[in-house]
Each structure stands twice: as structure tokens, then as C-alpha cells.
């Protein structure tokens, strides 16, 4: 097990190094922040001075080495744009994104699982077929279009829900939360539905497929033969057997949600990490862009590694596979 653990961790570190290199490489060529930072009035000398001050005059390798060694220590430098510590900037925005993702995940399970069960056990009913059809739309509709549609209906026409922002937030230590105020909860509704819609259809289709699979197995037939009520068969036996893959996919999708939240955040002016990234792109704020990519990849890699380790812990066969060829010293 320790060898397997080490291997997985080394893998993860390798991926992170590659991401860091890509982040650095892409942004090295994305443009010149100096022209965007100074106004029309600045002279050539000031432009040169700023370039030196930002370290842009140094060689490529040197810049990358500095970048990685700083990033390992959690130091992503100072934002070109507002001269604040980048890590602080990102951690300030993290709660907003995290809450949005959390609520979206909750929604996707709370809505997706029952719908999946329903479409599986009533697969020939009209409603189930309609849901199947609508779910295709849900997968293919881009979330920005959906968000704007929601704003049009619920903010402009009905005026029920706010079109932008996070409402009032409460500060608990370094964590800010909108869940404790009425306006904060109201502001969460539209963006979280927008973000979760893709997820809902994904969960629904997954649960449906797994349920159909399980319903065909022998132990369900035995359960029926024992005269158990349908409810107990469906939820007690069948659904429980489907949940493992659902939980795995949901866990892995959290990384995706965090990454894709940036579209939803832009539409609803949600002050999260995605918003920060989009702004950074506009201003060629390289430290912020690079740090965002690395933080999001880190979340991805961590989730993946945890899932792998959990699997290995649950299923020893995976461990043995991972070690084929290596001497087992124990």
C-alpha cells in the first residue's frame, strides 16, 4: 500500500508540474501587460522600468524556475493589475465559487436521482420519455444561454430574483457566506440552477442506466419473489447498488463544476474565482491567470487521486495490479 500511495502521489506531482509549465508557457506568449497597465501618457522610459520591475526582461527559463519555486510555497506573486497578493485574491473568491458548486451538486443529486429512478422503473410512461427527451436538451444547451434566459424570465419579466451578484454576505473568519441571509440565498437560486442543469441530466441518465442494469439481475428477481413491496425493491435494493458510481462521478464532477463555473459566474456577475480569471484575461494579469489554472488543476488532481486511493482501499485487486513487476518486499 505505501508503494502504491507513493506512486499515485508522484503521478499527481508530475501532472501538476506539467500544468504549471503549460500555464507558464501559454501566458508567456499571451501578450504584453505593460501596454495595458500604463495609460496614454506614460513615456518609453517608464514602460521599460515597469518591464524590469515585473521581471519580464529576464530569460524564459529563469522566469519559469522562479515561478515554480514560488508556486510550491503558495506564492503566486502580486497581481499586475491591482498589486495584491494573488493567493489572497483567489482565496477571497474561493468561498463564493465553492458555495455555488456545493448547492449545484446538492441540486443535481436531489433532482437527478429521483428522476433517474422514475425514468428507469416507469421507462415506458409518457412522462419518462418526455424527461429523457428534455434531458438531451439539458445536456446540449450552453449554460450562458440558459443563464440569460433565466435572467430574462425571472429578473426582468417577473422580477422575482436578482439578475446579478451574491446579495448580502456574512463574514465568518476568512470565509464569506451568502447562505445565512435571505438576499444571499435568493441570489444563489438562478446561478446554481444554471450550473447544475447539465449535472442533473448527467446524474439522471447515469442512475437510469444503472437502475435498468440492476433491475435485470437475479437478486432483484429473488427480492420480488420473496414478495417484497416494489418500494423496498426499488429503493432498498436496486438504488443502493447504483449509488457507488453516482457518488464517484459526482465527486469527479466537482472539479469540472469549479472550472465551468466561470461561465455562470460571468453571466450572473458572481464574485468567485471564475470571475477573477475572466477579469485577469481582459487585463493580461498573468500571475492571476497562472495561479487560477494551477489551483483548479490542483483540485482536479487531488479529487482524482483521492478517488483512486479510495478504490484501491476498497478493492485490493487494483493495488496488486499497480504493483505488477515491482518486488513485494513484505
Amino acid at each position: 500500500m505505501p508503494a502504491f500511495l507513493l506512486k499515485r502521489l508522484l503521478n499527481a506531482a508530475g501532472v501538476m508540474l506539467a500544468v504549471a509549465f503549460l500555464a507558464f508557457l501559454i501566458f508567456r506568449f499571451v501578450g504584453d501587460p505593460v501596454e495595458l497597465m500604463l495609460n496614454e501618457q506614460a513615456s518609453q522610459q517608464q514602460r521599460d522600468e515597469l518591464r524590469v520591475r515585473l521581471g519580464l526582461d529576464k530569460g524564459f527559463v529563469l522566469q519559469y524556475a522562479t515561478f515554480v519555486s514560488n508556486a510550491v510555497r503558495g506564492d503566486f506573486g502580486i497581481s499586475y493589475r491591482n498589486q495584491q497578493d494573488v493567493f489572497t485574491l483567489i482565496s477571497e473568491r474561493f468561498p463564493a465559487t465553492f458555495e455555488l458548486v456545493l448547492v449545484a451538486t446538492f441540486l443535481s443529486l436531489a433532482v437527478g436521482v429521483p428522476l433517474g429512478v422514475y425514468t428507469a422503473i416507469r421507462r415506458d410512461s409518457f412522462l419518462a420519455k418526455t424527461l429523457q427527451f428534455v434531458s438531451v436538451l439539458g445536456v446540449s444547451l450552453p449554460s450562458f444561454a440558459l443563464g440569460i434566459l433565466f435572467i430574462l424570465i425571472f429578473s426582468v419579466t417577473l422580477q422575482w430574483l436578482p439578475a446579478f451578484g451574491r446579495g448580502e454576505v456574512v463574514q465568518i473568519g476568512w470565509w464569506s457566506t451568502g447562505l445565512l441571509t435571505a438576499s444571499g440565498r435568493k441570489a444563489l437560486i438562478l446561478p446554481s440552477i444554471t450550473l447544475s442543469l447539465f449535472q442533473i441530466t448527467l446524474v439522471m441518465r447515469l442512475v437510469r442506466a444503472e437502475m435498468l442494469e440492476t433491475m435485470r439481475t437475479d437478486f432483484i428477481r429473488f427480492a420480488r419473489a420473496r414478495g417484497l413491496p416494489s418500494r423496498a425493491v426499488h429503493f432498498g435494493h436496486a438504488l443502493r447498488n447504483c449509488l457507488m458510481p453516482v457518488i464517484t462521478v459526482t465527486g469527479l464532477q466537482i472539479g469540472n463544476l469549479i472550472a465551468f463555473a466561470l461561465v455562470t459566474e460571468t453571466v450572473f456577475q458572481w464574485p468567485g474565482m471564475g470571475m477573477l480569471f475572466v477579469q485577469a484575461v481582459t487585463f493580461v494579469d498573468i500571475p492571476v491567470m497562472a495561479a487560477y489554472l494551477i489551483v483548479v488543476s490542483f483540485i482536479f488532481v487531488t479529487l482524482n487521486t483521492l478517488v483512486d486511493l479510495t478504490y484501491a482501499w476498497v478493492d485490493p485487486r487494483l493495488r496488486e495490479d499497480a504493483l505488477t513487476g515491482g518486488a513485494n518486499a513484505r
Partner: protein
Amino acid sequence: MKKAWLLAAVAAFALTGAAEAKTLKWGASREIASLDPYSYGETFTLAVLNHVYEGLVRYTGDLKIEPALAESWETVSPTVWRFKLRQGVKFHNGNPFTADDVIASLARVTHDTSPLKGNLPAYKSSKKIDDYTIELEVNGPYPLLLNDLTNIFIFDKEWMEANNSLLPTDSGKGVKGYATDNANGTGPFKVESRRADSKTVFVKNAGWWDKPKHNIDVIEFSPITSSSTRVAAMLSGEIDYTNVAPLQDLPRLSASPDVKVLQTNELRSVFFALNLGDKLIESDVKDKNPFKDIRVREALYRAIDIDAVQKRAMRGLSRNTGALVAPAIPGYEPSQDERLPFDLNGAKKLLADAGYPNGFSFQINCQSDSLVNEEEFCQAVAAMWSRAGLKPNLSMAPRSQQTPKRVKGEFDVISFGWANEPMIDAYSLLVQVLRSKSGTGGVFNWGNWGDPRIDALIDKAGVELDTPKRIEMMKEALKIAKKEQLFIPLHQQPMAWAMRSTVVSTVQASDNKPRLWLTVMK
């Protein structure tokens, strides 16, 4: 009896006043960079922070310079200016405003590491004469000191000392400033709270030295970067005011009974600039640069049907121009505003005369995220040039990708916009764009389009303290540029604000800066 009535009225007024604080919800198109006006030389950030901080002088609603924290000024010698400071002014924290504050602020903004150093280029030193008099020395005779000072905001020295903020924030050394997240100015509004990217709240400064023309108690500033969301927020009543109403949504906004639209033209003039170096970078003419021939430049000019551009690409909202600066800018001359008429056959003939009867190919470098409807007007003009027999190639990409190429001169034709801000004087365009590259001049002379006659006039105007004389020199320089057709002018780009009926009146100047201290609400 009368007194009692008056008292009751006052009490009633106070009550209603307390009951409904007038709050203006401002939905901006972007966030400000920082609460420190010296941290980032960006016009919009400065415009927002101008509600909190003030300079020695300021622009009025019609862009004239008037006294602010300085009451009067005189030139002691061509290089020394003496300012009499306003007495009885207090900072938001209650500290009195004196000469020490001005001197510490000037030292901070002109420090070597200050990103705003370029906004006060002529500064040499300053000294205190007494508590309310300072003398400011400049490097040489410099006529635009007052223009520059409109954007140099004054900090409280004691506050800067107490918070270790005497020096500007420095990204290179990783110095994060207290002033980035905190503010203490003398202006009409104080910062009450700030949550970056979400909401910044300003409250009325009851102790402001000036007589308020506004009646706003609270300003809630929220950036809403997505324009469709901003329009939705305006239509649903979540914001009262936006300083960037998207042009394509103006009809929709005007159609709403609760929303009104204020539309005018910006100071920013838009034109095409040509590479006048030895060779073009992407052309089938390899041995020389056709743009060096004035007949070719004139052909490009005459081939543009500006009315069609205005109507189609700019949705009828831009102002066609023949001059390189807008009417509000000193140096503007109405006679220069006349355009060469649109004349397709004339253009073809000029090209043939110049030796290009079959035209030639070249690249147009335009940006997708810079000027108003830039993509649209670049496409329109490219099509018009094709009709004249030329073979333009349109390269369209974001500003962050195009700028490095433009700076290095790797272009044939570029779209170019110049607002002359924050100086609001044609000298800005002349010295930064038209001047041949040398020393501090010609930073934006990317296409090598200098002219020695123009350079000489710019250099003379740069030290001429007699304003009418100076303006004549600038007009003369612009006249040469027009005669040589160094640039192909298009228009002043449109700008639009939108506000709900809760806003009774405001002042919209062509510098596109919100001045909410001149705004009245219902």
C-alpha cells in the same frame, strides 16, 4: 408661531430624510483596480476614485479647469508655480488639509516606483511656503501642469505615515499597500465598505468643503461585466445607473418607460494609421512601401464611404470627423474637420497614377475588444478598400494579442483611437503619437510616421506658456498632418449612459466620466 412651524417643517424634513436615504445603485461595466488612485494609471479607476479623492484643481462638467483644493495659483517664474490652498478642508478621518499633505502626495505619486508617475511628467520638486501655500517646480516651462494636476489626488500625510503608505505600492518588491483597500480623501463621498468584484459602498461626506449640488446619500457601486446582465439589471430595477449602456441594447432600454438613455460622442477619435516604414510586412509589393506615396494614402481615404460606416457599423451613433481631435479638445479646428469626399473612381484613378492599377495586398490589424464596434467598422472599411481594387487582409484578435505586434511596428494598417485623456489637450496626441520617436516623445509612433516640421512645432508648443499661442502651434502641426494625410480619420466613437427615472439629472461630458456629485435623484 412662525418659529414653531419652521421647526416642525425641519423636523418633518429630517424625518423623511432619515426614512429614505437616497441610494444610487451604479452598475458599472468593470471593477476598479484598487482604492489607491496611484496604483494603476487607468482613467476609469481614477474617475470613480474622484468621488473620494480630489486634486488641487478639477474639471467642470464642461471640461474647463476650476479650483478645487487649491483656491488660486500663479507662475512665479516659467518653471515655478505657486498654489494657494483652500483653508478649512478636512479629510474623511477629520484631519485638516494643509501644505504638508500636498507635498507628501506629490512625492508619493512621482516616486520612481509609482505607476502614475507618467501623469505628472514635468514635476521636479515642491516646497512649503506656509501651511496654505506651496511652490511647485517643473523641469522646464510646462504649459499643461494644471491639466495634469486634475488627476493627481491628494492624500493625508498623517494617515499615510500611520499606515506605512508614504511610498506607492510596489509589485516588484511585493509591497502591498494599506491604501489598496482603504481610503481617506477630501471628496464628496467616503468609502464605507468594499468587496472587490461585488460591491463598493460610498456614503455622503457631510463635511465636504464644497456646496453639494447632488442629493445622494449612498452610492452602491457594483461591476457587472456581462453587458446583457447589466441591461437586465437596469430593466428589472436592480440598478439606477450605468455608465456603459451597450449600443445594441439602446432601443430596448429607451423603450422601457422607467429607463432613459443619455447618448453623446466621446473625446476619443478613431482613425486608421499606416505603416510608413521602408517595407510592408504582409504585402505582394516587396521592394517598397506604397503607403509612402501620398496618392495611395489619399486613395485609401477617398475609398471610405463614411456615411455607410456610420449608419451600418456604428448604428448611426458615431460622429464623422476629418480632424484628429474631438471638438472639446483644445487644438481642435473646425476647418480641419471637413473630410475628403467619398469618391471611389477618384480613388481608383489615384491608385493607377501611383502605379498600382491592380492594387496591392496588405494587412489590417484590428482588435476585437478595444474600440466601440471595432470589428464592424474594420470589416466595413476592408470591404470598401476591396471595392477600390485593393486586397486588404483583415487580422482580428484580442487586444492582448494585437498590441505587441502594433508596438513592434509589425503591421501595415491599424485601427487607432486616441482620447487625449487625462490631459484633455491635443498636446497628448501630438507628443505621444505624431512626434517622431525620440527620448520621451513618440511612444505611440508605431508606424514611423514622423515629420520634422510637426516635431519642431510640438517641441515649441511643449514649452509655450501663452495658451492662445500654444494652441495655434498645435493647430498648425495638426494641419500639416492633415495635409500630408498621415492618418485616415473616421469618427468620434459613441458613448451612452442609461438611468432609471429615479435619477432626475446628471452631467454627461464627452470624457465619459461619471460625476455623481453633480447628480440629482428623485
